[in-house]
């Protein structure tokens, strides 16, 4: 029976082929796992190292003390308050602008070569080294507009830095909304603004928020542009409070105050010869990583919460 023989031979060939393909499958899964582990383990080791080194400084005092000449008494008060205020300015400046720009590009702008050009440039902006933003800010905000080496300058600089991230994320989450939903709204006579405001922004808010938080998490660790615009490194005072006890209860003096931020404080301590300060730096590094991870975790949780009720 030649046909049976040929069928069997063919089958053997096919089986050999499948075995070979499966082997490739296995090899790739090992390589992939290794690649993943390499990245994760590096981060994990770094984090453990920082925690182990900085451990002696983990106390409330570390958060409530100003920097000091004595490493053991030095704290992060001015740095984390500075970071918080700078982030506030970043949020207020980048979010409305980024979301508005994203909505405009996606919903309003005519689709032609010019909008394509803008799209490519916005995406590229997200990849520009942060020190370039620092130089731009030094020329524009510090000297050109005369904002000085202030919280306002730093906040706006980081705002510029994360603007492309917010725009790109806004556009992507808007794009995820099915056309059928827009048509449903248009078909009852909604205007473009009504469609955007009642539906598009609403359903895209999860993705937009995620983009904002991821952008902020990047901004909080940025050092280079902040150094470029001349943040102070040794500050033993707090900026004036943004809220006051007399009407109108909000003051803006803090915007023009000198400041420092967490990564700068860390950089400063790290560059001192005395090893005791390196312990402070490690503790600060661990804190920054924890804050960043918490922000990203919040982003993931929010996205899950908001999308849970929406299935297209």
């Amino acid at each position, binding site marked *: 029976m030649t046909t049976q023989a040929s069928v069997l031979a063919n089958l053997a060939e096919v089986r050999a082929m499948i075995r070979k393909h499966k082997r490739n499958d296995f090899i790739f899964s090992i390589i992939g796992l290794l690649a993943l582990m390499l990245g994760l383990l590096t981060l994990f080791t770094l984090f453990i190292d920082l925690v182990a080194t900085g451990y002696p400084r983990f106390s409330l005092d570390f958060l409530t003390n100003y920097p000091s000449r004595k490493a053991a008494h030095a704290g992060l008060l001015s740095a984390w308050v500075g970071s918080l205020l700078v982030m506030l300015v970043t949020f207020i400046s980048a979010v409305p602008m980024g979301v508005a720009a994203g909505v405009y590009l996606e919903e309003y702008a*005519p*689709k032609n070569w010019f909008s394509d050009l803008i799209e490519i440039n916005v995406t590229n902006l997200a990849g520009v080294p942060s020190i370039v933003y620092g130089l731009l800010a030094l020329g524009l905000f510090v000297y050109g507009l005369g904002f000085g080496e202030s919280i306002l300058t730093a906040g706006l600089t980081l705002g510029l830095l994360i603007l492309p991230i917010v725009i790109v994320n806004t556009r992507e989450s808007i794009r995820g909304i*099915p056309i*059928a*939903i*827009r*048509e*449903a*709204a*248009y*078909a*009852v*006579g*909604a*205007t473009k603004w*009504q469609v955007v405001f*009642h*539906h598009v922004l609403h*359903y895209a808010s999860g993705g937009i928020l995620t983009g904002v938080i991821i952008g902020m998490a990047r901004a909080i660790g940025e050092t280079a542009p902040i150094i470029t615009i001349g943040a102070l490194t040794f500050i033993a005072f707090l900026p004036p409070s943004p809220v006051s006890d007399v009407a109108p209860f909000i003051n803006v003096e803090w915007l023009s105050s000198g400041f420092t931020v967490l990564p700068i404080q860390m950089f400063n301590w790290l560059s001192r010869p005395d090893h005791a300060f390196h312990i402070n730096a490690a503790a600060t590094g661990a804190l920054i990583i924890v804050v960043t991870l918490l922000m990203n975790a919040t982003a993931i949780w929010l996205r899950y919460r908001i999308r849970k*009720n*929406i*299935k297209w």
Partner: protein
Amino acid sequence: MATITSPVKAESRDLNFYYSSGHKALKGISMALYEKRITALIGPSGCGKSTFLRCFNRMHDLYPGNKYDGQIVMHPDNTNILDSGVDPIEVRMRISMVFQKPNPFPKSIYENVAYGLRVRGERNKRVVDDKVEEALKGAALWDEVKNRLHDLAFNLSGGQQQRLCIARALATDPEIMLFDEPTSALDPIATASIEELMSELRNKLTILVVTHNMQQAARVSDYTAYMYLGELIEYDDTDKIFTNPGRKETEDYITGKFG
């Protein structure tokens, strides 16, 4: 046509339509929709029936480069709704639409129906409540959802979602309602309920329905138009089209020799 007893609600006059690609999807369509009658559009895929339907609420305006040439005149006011001076929003406020797949908003049942009223700026809760109830009753959905108006619309079945979309289209008292293959995503039982609903809606408004299902056209419509390759081949009483068509092409399509 034998049984015309109703005034013309809207009519297309020598309507051509071009997609942005340059494709001419409608070629010189002239036909009338009669008031409080159901007109069905049949024909093979790509014949232009959905394109024609979507001219009536200017849906094509949403995508750049599309071009209308010709008129759709609405009566009694004689407005050419394709005129560039006529706001598509105004057209959509008079002519509502039900889509192929149910497309409720990810909001509550109540908010879905109320949306057309919200768009019109209605803020009086009593008015909105009444309209929502009326529309849901009109769409034969009220009894099923009256105790869970604030549940998410996604929790409804496919047929219920489609009736919700009809209620949403109904809440604003449109003059004409467009149905773009409204049952193609539904099971036979849900389909029957939508067809029954359309027959009831016929007492209130004019209906234009695109359907792939010839039996459906025969069951629900008063008039039927057969389209092919962007042209209107034949338009007549549904009975006549299905029993004694005037054109050979129509007969071939109806009897399944073609398409």
